[in-house]
C-alpha cells in the first residue's frame, strides 16, 4: 500500500498495526491470570521477546534511515560503545548512557560537517 490510499491506509494500519500488537496484549491479560511467574515457558517467551527487540535495535544502529544513512558506521558504533561504558560507570542509570551516546554522536556529526 502507499500513504495516499485514503481509507485503505487506515485499514492497513488498523490490521497490520493495531490488531497485530493488541492480540499479544490481550493474550497477555489471559496468560497473566494463568501463566506461572517462575515457569520455564515464561522464561523462554521472555528470551525470544528480548532477542526480537535487540535485533531491531541492532538494525536501527547498523542500517539507519534518513540523515544517519550517510554517517560512518564507526561513529554510530563508537557512540553506542562509549555510551555503554558510561552507563555502567554511572551505576546503570539510563539517562547517563543515553546522554553520553547522543553527545558522542552529535560531536562526531558536527566534526564531520553534517
Amino acid at each position: 500500500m502507499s500513504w495516499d490510499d485514503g481509507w485503505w491506509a487506515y485499514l492497513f494500519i488498523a490490521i497490520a498495526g493495531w490488531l497485530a500488537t493488541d492480540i499479544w496484549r490481550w493474550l497477555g491479560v489471559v496468560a497473566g491470570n494463568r501463566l506461572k511467574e517462575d515457569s520455564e515457558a515464561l522464561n523462554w517467551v521472555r528470551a525470544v521477546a528480548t532477542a526480537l527487540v535487540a535485533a531491531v535495535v541492532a538494525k536501527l544502529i547498523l542500517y539507519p534511515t534518513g540523515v544517519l544513512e550517510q554517517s560512518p558506521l564507526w561513529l554510530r558504533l563508537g557512540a553506542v560503545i562509549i555510551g555503554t561504558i558510561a552507563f555502567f560507570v554511572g551505576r546503570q542509570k539510563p539517562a547517563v548512557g543515553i546522554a553520553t551516546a547522543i553527545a558522542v554522536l552529535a560531536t562526531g556529526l558536527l566534526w564531520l560537517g553534517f
Partner: protein
Amino acid sequence: MEESRDEGTGRAWFLAGMRGIVSLPAMILMLSFVGFCAFTAQAGAPLEQVIFMIGAVWALPAKVILVSSIMSGANLLTAFIAVTLSSIRLMPMVAALVPEIRTTRTPTWLLLVLSHFVAITAWVFAMERVQAVPRQHRVTFFAGFGITLVLANMALVALVYRFVAEFPPVVAGCLFFLTPVYFLASIWSSARHPVIYVALAIGLVAGPLFYWLAPEFDILLAGAGGGTLAWALERTWRKRREVRA
C-alpha cells in the same frame, strides 16, 4: 466503594498516575517520539496517519517496523507478520503486569482495554511504582499514567510534525538515534531476570547476522533462534549452579 482516608480516592490516584508524565522515562519517550516523527516525515507518512498510528499501535518498535514495511512496499500479510512478531514481547510484559495491579474484583474487560497502553516505558514505570500504590488503586494509577502518555505523545507529534523536516541534520540524526539507545538502556536497567541480559546480547549479534543470511525473515529468525539459544544457555548455567549449590 468505601475508601479509607489514608489511602486516598480513585481520582487522586488517577491524577498521581497522570503526574508521571513529568518523570524521566516519560521525557525520554517524548524525545524518542519527536525522533519517530522525523522518521515518519522522512518516510512521507501524512500527519493524520501518524497520529492514528500512535493511538492505535502505541508500541514504538512495532510502529518503526510498520512504517518500514509500508516504505518497502510490503503487502498486508507481510506487514502484519513483521509487526506481530516484533510485538510478541508485549504478551509476557502484560502477563507480568496484570498480577501486580489487579484485585479479585478487577473486571477482565477493563484489563483488556488498559492493556492497550502497555509498551516499554509505561511497563517499566508501572512495574517500578505500583509497589507504592495501595492495591485497590493500582489499576486506576496505571490508567492515569498510560492514557496521559499516549495522548501527550499524539499531541506532541501533531505540534512538531511541521517542524521536524526543517530540523538541522545533526538534530534529526540524534533524535533518530535516541530510539535504539533508549531501548538498550531501558531493557538492561529494567531487567529482572538473568535471561534478559543473555537474550539482549545474543539478539544484538543475531539481528545483523540473520539480516546478512536471510534478510526477509531476519527479525523472526533472530528472535526465535537467538532467544531460544539465550534461554538454553541461561538454563544450562542455572542448572549447573543449582547442582553445585
